[in-house]
């Protein structure tokens, strides 16, 4: 079942003519000519579509929180500041099929009553920005954007804004600050963006994938979308698969297939690279807890884990993880978890905005301690210190970056503590190039 990537391999899909030949922009026509904004919102609510940026908040509900005072403009902002290590799905979608996003933007803006909308793209993706700009110009030329769209009296201007290349600007309030031309520091909440967002006006910030899915929902109805998937995880999800698998890439999966199928079937990842076996998986981008092979394939209850929001988080933080943004990083047994954790910790150290003290100081502290362990200078008390620092950051910060920095470290220690201990007790072996800890009884290959 493919929704977003159905026509993505059609040659020339990035041009509006080919896109329209393949059924593009029908949703705009349907929504603007035959539906009211509230009806569109209702369909999105019915679809059960959940935010694809990471938090998984129901999108229809987010839309219904939007304050609608008289005489105040409302904005829709598309969050395309995809910078989470391991996640590259939005990049792929915008690069291959920019009109899918633009169609979704028009439909969503219409539903929210926004007359100005923005796509905030991370600055590193300058060529994607050029593709989007070109596509938007085409849409303007066809009368799908601008004044009086399709003769309906609805106006919409769509702008692309390049970011400066900061991970933190993917946090919605930091994104709005950055969009306003300020330093990208997250705001204190409340007030939430739905009440006071961009330029203190009501604003909805949604992920690229969520917005792109709305046009299919308008075309086929919310119920049809809700029919895909399991339970409260409806629809399809783009998964960016990377790491030690045979076929890395972006896959669109119907939510609800098993993790095992996703990793091992030939339709998706195609299994672990030859001669190796699965050691650990980061299921939703670098900020979600890492899980060992046993925990990712089966839940505590012994059931097969599914690719859904609920199933992945089953077991809480002890044995569960999160679907997050769908950055699926697979590691085989040649991976050193300490080194991997160091990479993540260094990333969060580098990307912390420095506004609130637990995250500013804590991320740097964790980075330095793990660095010491990795280079063979660890002390036996360092592991408990890391757990305690992670605990003191978690939940005490302005934005979720603190949690995102704390979880990977805490989870790596929870599931691979013996590996950290080995680094501390065997510094000479551990610092040899390519050295990886093997659990007693473990082997290098199948």
């Amino acid at each position, binding site marked *: 079942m493919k929704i977003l990537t159905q026509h993505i391999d059609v040659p020339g899909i990035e041009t509006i003519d080919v896109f329209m030949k393949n059924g593009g922009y029908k949703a705009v026509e349907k929504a603007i000519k035959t539906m009211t904004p509230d009806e569109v919102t209702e369909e999105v609510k019915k679809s059960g579509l959940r935010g694809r940026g990471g938090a998984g908040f129901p999108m229809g509900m987010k839309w219904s929180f939007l304050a609608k005072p008289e005489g105040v403009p409302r904005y829709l902002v598309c969050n395309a500041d995809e910078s989470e290590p391991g996640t590259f799905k939005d990049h792929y979608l915008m690069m291959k099929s920019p009109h899918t996003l633009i169609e979704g933007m028009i439909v969503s803006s219409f539903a929210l009553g926004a007359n100005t909308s923005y796509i905030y793209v991370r600055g590193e993706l300058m060529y994607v920005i050029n593709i989007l700009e070109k596509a938007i110009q085409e849409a303007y030329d066809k009368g799908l954007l601008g004044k009086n769209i399709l003769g309906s009296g609805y106006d919409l201007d769509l702008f692309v804004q390049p970011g400066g290349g900061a991970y*933190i600007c993917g946090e919605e309030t930091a994104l709005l600050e950055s969009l306003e031309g300020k330093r990208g520091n997250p705001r*204190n909440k409340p007030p939430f963006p739905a009440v006071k967002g961009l330029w203190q006006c009501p604003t909805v910030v949604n992920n690229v994938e969520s917005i792109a899915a709305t046009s299919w929902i308008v075309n086929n109805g919310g119920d049809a979308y809700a029919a895909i998937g399991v339970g409260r995880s409806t629809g399809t999800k783009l998964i960016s698969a990377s790491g030690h698998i045979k076929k890395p890439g972006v896959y669109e999966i119907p939510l609800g297939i098993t993790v095992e199928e996703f990793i091992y079937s030939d339709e998706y990842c195609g299994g672990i690279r030859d001669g190796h076996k699965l050691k650990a998986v980061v299921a939703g981008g670098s900020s979600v807890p890492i899980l060992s092979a046993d925990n990712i394939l089966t839940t505590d209850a012994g059931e097969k884990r599914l690719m859904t929001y609920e199933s992945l988080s089953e077991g809480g933080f002890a044995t569960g993880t999160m679907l997050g943004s769908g950055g699926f990083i697979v590691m085989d047994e040649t991976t050193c978890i300490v080194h991997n954790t160091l990479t993540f910790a260094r990333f969060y150290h580098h990307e912390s905005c420095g506004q609130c*003290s*637990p995250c500013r100081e804590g991320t*740097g*502290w964790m980075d*330095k301690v793990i660095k010491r362990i990795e280079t063979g200078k660890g*002390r036996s008390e360092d592991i408990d210190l890391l757990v305690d620092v992670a605990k003191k950051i978690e*939940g005490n910060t302005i934005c979720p970056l603190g949690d995102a920095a704390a979880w990977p470290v805490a989870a790596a220690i929870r599931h691979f503590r013996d590996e950290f201990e080995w680094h501390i007790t065997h510094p000479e072996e551990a610092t040899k190039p390519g050295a990886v800890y093997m659990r007693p009884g473990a082997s290098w290959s199948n």
Partner: protein
Amino acid sequence: MKVTIDNITLDVEPGTTIMQAARMIGPEVAPPAMCYYEPLQGSGGKCRACLVKVTAGSEKDPRPMPKLVPACITAVQDGMIVENTVNEAVLETRKGIVEFLLLNHPLDCPVCDQAGECHLQDFSFEHGVSSTRTVEERNTFEPVDLGENIKLNMNRCILCYRCVYTADQITDGRVHGVMNRGDHAEISTYIEKAIDNDFSGNVIDVCPVGALTDKTYRFKSRVWFSKPMDAHCSCDKCSGNVTLWYRGDEVIRVTGRKNQWGELKEFICNTCRFDRKKTSDWVIEGPTEVSRHSVISANKYGANMIRPAFPIAQAARDFKQIDDNRDRSFLENKSILPAKK
């Protein structure tokens, strides 16, 4: 609106924050504030020192809030129940915050001008632990001059953003802000420009630590050796209400007047602060009221005559007889010990 903080209930106006309500009760229950500064709009929420537990959100919705909330920016709801000093988790978190703030702080209090009136000293004394767990090298910066009267020592900065808000809100043409991010973020004027306006000196007063110091006072004295006096003058730029800091007959420093929470009552101009350093420039109103517990009051106003009963009682209680030949006469002096029962 009724709000209960640490089992004390009081009535407040709608829109009051938990911090303001707690301060109405008194310093015993007021959470510490490192970044929040009431006169500056938009300040607060950054240092996380004032995190408190809300055990009941409001009368209507009495569920507890899932996370600790910053008291300085959270508005009270009717029937809210807040736990500050009585909650274990809050105190534990606060220990962590002290640790985080001190992580890259040089702890050069012995040579720092702010020592004695430093909020970070007070905060770590009241809420921190006595030992450190870090062995990591600290991040360091070179001290820079912001104009001829202000010295910026970024090593000591805790990035409270107060000086940025001050510059934004009370002076024209802000030239300084925060550059870089994470623990490398620094207060800076873009490429070491001088801060040049009539009210720039106030950034020294709002700084909770010794990151921004007065170059006309630098290394001249310690705050507890100087004697603060309220004084005023007729100034055409500001109200002219200041505190003069005397050492002997010499005015060694001029600052704005601060309230109980260390916040400026009025912002003063640079002429008053840096140039009027003669007693003849001022009309003296009298000694500044200083808390008896402050180190500033030590050796002044007869404060040294007051016997601090509690520490001596505690010392006597904790005293263990050691069999040695040192002179213990001071402990056998009956006049300073509480009478034995």
